[in-house]
């Protein structure tokens, strides 16, 4: 399971970085979203992977660390708000600048199909 999770985080991060480096605002927003998914997963597994154990200290022999779950909750809320904000900002930039390029103007290379 460790390898699978690591692969998922890696692929999400790589796609996120690739998309965030694109020239148009929509892929950039998607890229940031992928990055935040990757980091949320990453934070979550920092409490170690465990199946079927309670997230509280009790009489049970094993328990899983509840703190990363709280951290992920905070991170999800923040990244959710940030994504909403950056979408609105991208729309505003589209309206104010007349196109959806991050620099406000399309260069000639981008215009080619």
């Amino acid at each position: 399971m460790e390898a699978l999770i690591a692969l998922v985080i890696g692929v999400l991060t790589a796609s996120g970085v690739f998309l965030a480096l694109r020239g148009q605002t929509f892929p950039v927003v998607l890229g940031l979203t992928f990055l935040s998914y990757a980091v949320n997963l990453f934070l979550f597994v920092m409490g170690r992977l465990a199946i079927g154990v309670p997230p509280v200290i009790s009489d049970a022999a094993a328990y899983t660390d509840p703190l990363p779950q709280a951290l992920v909750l905070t991170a999800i809320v923040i990244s959710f708000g940030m994504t909403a904000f950056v979408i609105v900002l991208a729309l505003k930039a589209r309206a104010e600048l007349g196109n959806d390029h991050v620099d406000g103007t399309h260069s000639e290379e981008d215009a080619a199909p």
Partner: protein
Amino acid sequence: MNGLAMHLPILPVLLPLVAGIALLALRSAPLAVQRGISLAATAALVPLALALLATASDGTQLVYKLGNWDAPFGIVLVADRLAAWMLMATALVALFALLHALRGDDVQGRHFHVLYQLQLFGLNGAFLTGDLFNLFVFFEILLLASYGLLLHGGGPLRVKAGLHFVVINLVGSTLFLFAVGTLYGVTGTLNMADLAVKLARTVPENLALVEAAGLLLFGVFALKAALLPLHLWLPAAYAHTSAPVAALFAIMTKVGAYSILRVYSLMFGADAGAVANLLADWLMPLALVTLVAGMLGAVGATALRQQIAYLVIASVGTLLAAFALDSVDGIAAGLYYLPHTTLATAAIFLLADPIARARGERADRFESGPAMPGARVLGGLFFVAAIAMAGLPPLSGFLGKFMLLRAALESPWLTWLWSAVLATGLIGVITLARSGSLLFYRTHSTTEKLTAPRAADWLPAAGLLLLGLGMVVWAGPVSDYATATAAQLLEPQAYIDAVLGGRP
């Protein structure tokens, strides 16, 4: 300690939050009421910061346990000398920037005062918190408020600069979380004092992980501080936003510098065992390159506000070069330079606004324009501000740089630091003199109708310059405080004992 005094460390965090929420609820109240609340809340931060400064000045490290949970299980706020120092600088800059905003910038868009208070909430929280994840949360709060403030008033240039600023900071936040997650995964704690203890005992097989996380954190803080090569977002963002916001943002790069100083003196300092002096090879060359690059940018700038933005980058370089010396004298020089450069930058940003206004359609671009009305007052103030920025005697910039040069005498970086600081100082003088003569002397007559600046347009900037003068008059006590702060930072054991209550 009785009632209110016991809760002193949390008041600078709570007050702007409560004021911000109240302002949001009162958004349809008359403008005078909103301005009154905002001004009162911002002004009240000054006595609060003074009280904290007085408490911290005898070396007390006031630890405030939220919900009375003991560290490292609960979140703590720590008001030590450094935190109080940063709060004081923030409160002063915020007050004068707000006074400037009250003359009209705050009605260009909605919710200016709400965002302003939330920005102060984030700033004060970031300076006070003793928990790494909490630092992330306060970073996000101050960033989200700063996105709103940056875009305040709108316009294509502001939106474009804002988009870059937001995207790069979102990537920075993601990296911050990766670093925090790695540190938690290795040590199982997020309390900075506890982290310092645990990181010093890092076992060899985790060393690479911890170092990666530590350097990732440095990357994030360097992004906030606009250290080369992560400085490219700053000039456009600062040059195109409104004057009071740019003035308040003078403290924003200092948040990054503060975080570098706090985290790397506490968690990766000389006593940190296996991970000691993690940044020793990186910080100084990066800081010096930043200083030179910032100054070259200022030479090539085509407008006054753009030039000041590049000077902000240069000042970050100077500041971090001082911190990189990693000695009591070096850090003390940096801590003296920090409020000076914040005040001077804020003042000159506030001055650029009436100058641009008085020049009509040429605004602050460096081209020959009509003789501006009120040039005597504006020119005089610009002269004083430029002297402070360039670091010439008799103002505080000179003292800061002098302390830095003297502190570098014993450092292996002596040659590099002296040549970089002295050469950029000279370039700074020439650049600012050229800008001043272009704006104020090389003028021609015009039929364009120009309006003279009112006293309210330049009084806040003059107030900030007076504070800078105060730093010269009381240079003795101020530098004593800075030296004591530096000594406290280089003895992290006291901080750790204060937070963890002396437990091992």
